[in-house]
């Protein structure tokens, strides 16, 4: 029987890998909530496909976390048996779907960061992370293109679509600073060439965002403060609700298989 949250060893690389796996799983799960509810069939399929890529990345990363921890845990144990405080994902990815514009803005902001992040990771001194990255960066490049095109269509579209996209950007922008945070124990991983130095990715990310926003006639909000905490397990209220859905079956029927 499993109750409560797994006690995970607190090793820097394990923590780092779990954070990236959590980003992919939580965002993939959010997108899966759109399945059958998309504004049109093509975009319903698109969001489900983005989710599939992300959940696939999460599975590979969780599997690697299991190897690193050496406690015999598989991908499902990490996904289903940790409470929200054990999750290390970015606040950005756990935000609710909102309308289509909010989902696209969230996805674009993530992809604008994750695409150059994974490309940089292909040069990691850790062979497994480099291999995972080589697959993820191709997928994220496609995600960036798809969501970037939608940013431009929505922002430079009708008054209604512009307003919705701008409103989503005004809300979500303040959750992007966390991407560049260096977590506990992470500096040593950067220095040994295992983890990505966020400074090496930030310029590319900013450049992508500013180019797309210009074409989309959208503007970055001003006067706010960047929020963080997800990487330390301090989440917005939304993650707990998401996990009750994601973990329901394994929490209600521990060890269930089919």
């Amino acid at each position: 029987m499993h109750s409560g949250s797994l006690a995970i060893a607190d090793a820097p690389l394990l923590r780092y890998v779990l954070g990236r796996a959590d980003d992919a799983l939580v965002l993939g799960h959010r997108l899966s909530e759109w399945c059958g509810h998309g504004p049109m069939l093509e975009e319903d399929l698109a969001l489900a496909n983005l989710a599939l890529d992300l959940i696939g990345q999460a599975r590979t990363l969780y599997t690697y976390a299991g190897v690193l921890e050496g406690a015999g845990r598989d991908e499902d144990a990490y996904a289903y048996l940790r409470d929200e405080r054990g999750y290390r994902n970015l606040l950005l990815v756990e935000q609710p779907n909102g309308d289509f514009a909010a989902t696209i803005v969230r996805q674009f902001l993530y992809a604008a960061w994750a695409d150059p992040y994974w490309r940089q990771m292909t040069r990691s001194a850790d062979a497994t992370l480099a291999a995972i990255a080589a697959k993820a960066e191709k997928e994220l490049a496609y995600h960036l293109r798809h969501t970037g095109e939608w940013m431009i269509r929505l922002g430079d579209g009708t008054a209604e679509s512009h307003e919705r996209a701008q409103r989503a950007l005004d809300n979500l922008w303040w959750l992007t600073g966390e991407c560049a945070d260096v977590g506990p124990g992470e500096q040593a991983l950067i220095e040994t060439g295992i983890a990505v130095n966020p400074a090496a990715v930030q310029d590319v990310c900013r450049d992508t965002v500013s180019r797309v926003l210009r074409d989309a006639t959208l503007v970055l909000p001003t006067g706010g403060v960047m929020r963080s905490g997800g990487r330390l397990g301090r989440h917005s209220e939304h993650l707990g609700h998401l996990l009750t859905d994601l973990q329901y079956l394994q929490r209600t029927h521990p060890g269930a298989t089919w």
Partner: protein
Amino acid sequence: MTEGPVVDLETRREAVRRVVAQVPDPEIPVVTIDDLGILRDVIAEGDTLQVVITPTYSGCPAMRVIEHDIVAAVEAAGLGPVQVTLSLSPAWTTDWMSDRARQQLRAFGIAPPGPARSTTESSADTTAVATFFRHAPVTCPRCGSLRTTELAAFGSTACKSLWRCEACREPFDHFKAH
């Protein structure tokens, strides 16, 4: 020599390679996993054989079916047991697809992929936005026209997008360069 339960490992390895190379892709059964570049190797480890495959997309749901089909094909040929292992590196690319597979895709109504973008392209970072709304030309697999339009960036499987030919007016799948 090839009859009976005892054959040497190298003979069995070669036979397994031939059998596994014929396993069709579960979602596009006109091409084999060998032609798609999913089958990487068959190697002898101690006295067991390992079939090494590489995933296409991280979340491709066909991978588990492919693993199952490999084991079933090898056992049906009386060449078992084998283990199937996944190799992530080097990452699969559509550039590994054989010319035969490209022809078979076209005959099946799927436009084959063009050259994949290189991960190491130094310009990849700065030109991403400049490529939005632009596509490398895709040839209609039915009539050969280049007057084609993308209808949806995501299609019936992770590896395909949906297009329409403006000349013959038929929709068709495009196997995305990846």
